[in-house]
Every structure is written in C-alpha cells, then in structure tokens.
C-alpha cells in the first residue's frame, strides 16, 4: 500500500544510495567474494528488507555501509555508498564516528554479545548519548534522555540500574534497540533482530520496531531470512544470493507479481504453509556456491531448475518493470520486463 506510493514518488529524498558495491575478504589462503555488485537506494522513512540465506552477503553489505568491515581482511573493492548525498568511503575517521550512531545505528541477532556485561544498561545508554552529544546535553539531561529512551522501548526506567544478565532475551534486545535509538539515527539496520527470540516475544519486538520507525520517521533496513517478517514490515524488498541482488521490488512485487527470480520462487517453495497443508515442499536443490570459487555465468545456475545454456555462460542482465527488477536471463521475453540499462 505505502510501498507502491514510495516507489512511484521519484521526488522523495534518498537518504542512502549504494552503487555497484563489491566487497571481498582477503586472507592469506583465499579471497572470499562476499558482495558482488550490489546497488540499491533507500528513501527517508522507508523500510527495505534484505532477504537471503546464510552466506548471501547481507551482513557484509550492512557492515560496509557503516565502514565496519574487519580492517585487515575486509576490502571494499569497487562502488560507492552515499549517505545523505555524501560518500561514506571518503569520510574521515571523525566523520565516521558521527556517522555510526548519529546517522546509522545497527542492532544484531544476539543481544547478549552486543551488551557489556559489567556495565548497567543505564550507563550503556548514557554512554552512547554522551559520545554523540551534539546538542550539548548536561549530565542531568542525559539521564532524562535515558529514561525517555527506555520508556520508548517499553522498559520501566526504574530498571536502568540493572545489568544485562538480569534481563531476559527479549528485554535485552529492547535494551540494544534503546541504545541504537538513543541518538535518533536516520537509519536503523536490524540484522536478524528477532531470530534468537521466541515467537510471542518476536511479535512484541517487531511491533515495537515498527512503531518506533513510524513515530520517528527513520529509515530501516531489515536483514532477515524470514519471509514472514518481510511481509509484515517492509515496503521494499531486495533478495540477495551469493553477494548479488537477484530480485528487487516493492513488497507487493515480491509476494504477488507473476514473474520472479527462480531463487525467490525456490525460497517460497521451501517454507511450509501455515494456512494450508502441502503434501511436499519444493526445496532448492544443492547448496550456496563457494564464495571463493563462484560459478561462471549466473551464480544461481547450478541450482536453478530452469537453467539454460546461456545461464552457464553469460552473466544475466537486470530486467525491470515498474521498479520490479529481476536479474535473470529468462525474463528476457517476459511481458513488460525490459532491460534495465542504468544498472547493467
């Protein structure tokens, strides 16, 4: 619903633009091609779902946005990342410090590892606020802000003197979100934020993230493997496979359009249906390709049920219709999908 509008509104302010991004991890032994030519953009207040399986390069893409790749091994080989119009790749260390926290914040799957076990949660939140204290808050104002942020995520501010281990998994994830929210970032990257949580708690946390997003008007990148979460939270969706975006479109495109990338079809065939009983699931055969030795041609070709000769030989172009983009040779004759010149 909202999704359709945002994609058509070209005038909407783009807060994030990723252009043809390539990321590699280089070790002495091998070079892992983690991200291979990813381009997408995100408007203010919009939610993008980044979907894919383990090893698809979702987290690497997110870390690259914040320039948080492991220093010695992770290298951005090509491409550019623009945040609010300025390139992250050219930013100085000081600008990066401001970028992380004030402009972009990130939350991870396991809340316990992102919290410091020997500091109270109040201290951890106020630390984040005083680190990015552009408004010149006094110590008292910072404490007020801590209370405010805690209330925002549904934790009584009286608990701010407690330590992470005194909270349950769901509550810890709330604390992590509170820290991320403390400086009112323009963009929140949530990397599988509910994978470690139970369903009922997941529903609570997702609801909270959605409410915060709507209230604060921030952009959100939701990294997940769960198509259910995508359907419930995202405006636009990018399906990632072996470091590439194989399909990009509005949530409605991904769930309802007549044409899809075979990998997207495979993902849908793999999940058991909740409302009806299917006799047999249709999984994708085989495994994700080894990122040190990617196949020639289309990266999905070894597992693709529709694989043709051309798929093994040439990299596919992107075909698009009304902003729904599919990177597959077989879309060449599909109705209305034309080659996306800008991208390929």
């Amino acid at each position: 619903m909202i999704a359709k509008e945002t994609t058509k509104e070209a005038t909407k302010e783009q807060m994030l633009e990723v252009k043809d991004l390539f990321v590699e991890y280089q070790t002495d032994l091998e070079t892992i091609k983690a991200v291979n030519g990813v381009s997408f953009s995100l408007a203010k207040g919009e939610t993008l779902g980044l979907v894919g399986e383990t090893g698809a390069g979702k987290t690497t893409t997110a870390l690259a946005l914040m320039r948080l790749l492991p220093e010695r091994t992770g290298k951005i080989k090509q491409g550019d990342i623009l945040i609010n119009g300025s390139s992250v790749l050219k930013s100085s260390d000081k600008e990066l410090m401001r970028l992380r926290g004030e402009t972009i914040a990130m939350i991870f799957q396991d809340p316990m590892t992102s919290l410091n076990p020997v500091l109270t949660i109040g201290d951890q939140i106020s630390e984040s606020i005083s680190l990015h204290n552009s408004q010149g808050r006094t110590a008292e104002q910072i404490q007020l802000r801590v209370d405010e942020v805690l209330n925002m995520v549904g934790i009584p501010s009286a608990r701010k003197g407690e330590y992470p281990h005194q909270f349950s998994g769901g509550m810890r994830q709330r604390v992590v979100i509170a820290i991320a929210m403390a400086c009112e970032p323009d963009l929140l990257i949530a990397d599988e934020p509910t994978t470690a949580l139970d369903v009922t708690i997941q529903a609570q946390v997702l609801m909270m993230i959605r409410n915060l997003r709507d209230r604060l008007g921030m952009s959100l990148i939701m990294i997940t493997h769960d198509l259910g979460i995508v359907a419930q939270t995202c405006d636009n969706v990018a399906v990632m496979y072996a470091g590439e975006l194989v399909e990009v479109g509005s949530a409605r495109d991904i769930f309802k359009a007549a044409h899809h990338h075979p990998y997207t079809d495979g993902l849908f065939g793999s999940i058991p249906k909740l409302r009806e009983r299917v006799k047999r699931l249709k999984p994708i055969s085989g495994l994700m390709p080894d990122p040190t030795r990617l196949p020639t041609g289309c990266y999905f070709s070894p597992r693709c049920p529709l694989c043709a000769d051309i798929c093994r030989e040439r990299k596919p172009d992107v075909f698009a219709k009304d902003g729904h983009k599919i990177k597959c040779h077989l879309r060449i004759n599909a109705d209305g999908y034309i080659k996306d010149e800008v991208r390929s």
Partner: protein
Amino acid sequence: MTTQTPLVKTTGLKKYFNVSKKLLHAVDDIDLEIFPGKTLGVVGESGCGKSTLGRVILRLLEPTSGDIFYDGENITKYRGSRLKEIRAQMQIIFQDPYSSLNPRMSVAEIIAEYMIVNHVYKRKTEAFSQAAKLMDLVGLARRYANLYPHELDGGRRQRIGVARALSLNPSFIVCDEPVSALDVSIQAQILNLLMDLQENIGLTYMFITHDLSVVRHISDDIMVMYLGQCVERARADELFDNPLHPYTKALLSAIPEPDIDARNKEIQIIRGEVTSPINPPAGCRFAPRCESATEKCATEAVELVDRGEGHFVACAKMD
C-alpha cells in the same frame, strides 16, 4: 484408532530438576499417546520443557514420576541390557548438527558406531557397508564417507544425524528441532527426507519444534506446551483451524505470515514473558499473561479436558 495400541504412551510423566534447593518443573504431568506411523508435534517456546520431555521418554533422563510405555510395555524401570534393547527401538535426532557429531570421527564411523556398540554385525566391515547403505538412504553421497563432520555443511551434517538415528532400525524417533539451525532451502530438504522416510519405513515421530508452520506441515497431532504442561492437544488441522486455548491463539497470531495480504491482520500480542518454571503457582500457569484470566485462574488448577473429537484443552474459561 481406539483398537490400536499406541507405540509410545506416557501417563502422569513428571521431571523436576533441583535448582539450588528449589524444584524446577521442567515436565509436569504429561499424558500422551503416539500411534504407529504417526507424528506428534510438540510446540512451545524455549524453556517450556519440550526437549526435556523428549529425553525423558527416551530414558536419557530419569523421570521424577509417571510411566512410559513402549508398544504396551512399561519401560520406566528398565535397566542394563533391557534398556539397551529398548534404546535401539527409540532414537533421537538433535537440533545442532555441529555439536551432535563427534569431530574426531569420520562420517562412516559416526554412522557405524551404534551398530558396532550394539554388536549388530559380527565384523566391523559389515557395519561399514550398512553405513554406506544408510548414506544412500538419507541422500548423502558415499564419497563423503571419509570426511570429518566439520568439512560438511549444516544440511549434510544433519543427514548424518538422521542416518545414525536410523542405523539400529528404530520404529520411533524423537526429532528435537532438527531443522531449526538450518537455512530455509536446506530445511525443506531435511523435512522432505524425514517425511519420505516415514512413508517408506513407517517411522513414528515425536517432532519437537518452536516453528509452528513446520509443525503443521509434518504432524498428525499437535501438543502445545507451556511451562512444562500441555495446554492443548488436537489433530493438526483442527488445532490450526480452531485453536481454543488463549496461549495457542496468541502463538498462532504471533507468527509473521509470509503473505502480504495478512499484513494488517490483528496480532494478539501477549504481554509479558514466560514466568519461571521454578516452584510455579498452583493455578493455570498461563494466567499471569492471559487476557481473559480471572482470579480463579490464578489459584485453581486446570485439567486437560476433551472438548470433542480428541481436542483437549486446559482452560478454566472453557466451562
């Protein structure tokens, strides 16, 4: 169905753990019946005691009280060689395909181990050739036989776990979240494998999971657990189409559906979190989080009552 004897049956099964002089009620008074060739799905959130229940039934943990019947025999007190015999009939597939395989043993050794331990064959080579046949059965190429588990991916490792569980020709297998650690496309491969095996060999499963869509896909009957107790038990379709217990309803509505039209469906978000299973109160254990709970719910114990056609519900508000 009534004339058939259940393959696995428990009556009043309890397992308490001592936690610093208090009692943790991990499994509290569970009655269940699983018929041959069928699958009982056990659903619940972490800490509801579903894994403990599976292990108690397999006699990997000693029950505090209650009885376990296998094919009509009470196996609760079995020891030594009789226990070993019954264990060959009942197997388990673990959640974590990483920690459940001995890293120092090759794939073939892991699969052959049970057969060697139980002296199924006179010679070890026979056990190894049977292991190769099992690898064919679970769709694991024989060229992996000499590799070590860490050289394989999660899906293949889980196939090793399945092959090992099948090696003693069991009739009953407890699947303890066998697909939770796997990616969706691999998860579907393993689910299909388990269902094919059931059809071809006639296995009986107890399928423990927190994933409701998976449990509907694979189960004939479903039992919903909350804090060690069964709150609802029914045929799979009946449970999903007509959930009666408030907890089941909340669970079902909490699943994010991969359907964009369901986007604005009303989600019943239950407040709070699972309370502690240590010395739980007398009344309904879900009462502190239940929307429709009354004072009576918090103090009076609830019974699991048949609400028609084998749909059991434990809720005082049903009366």
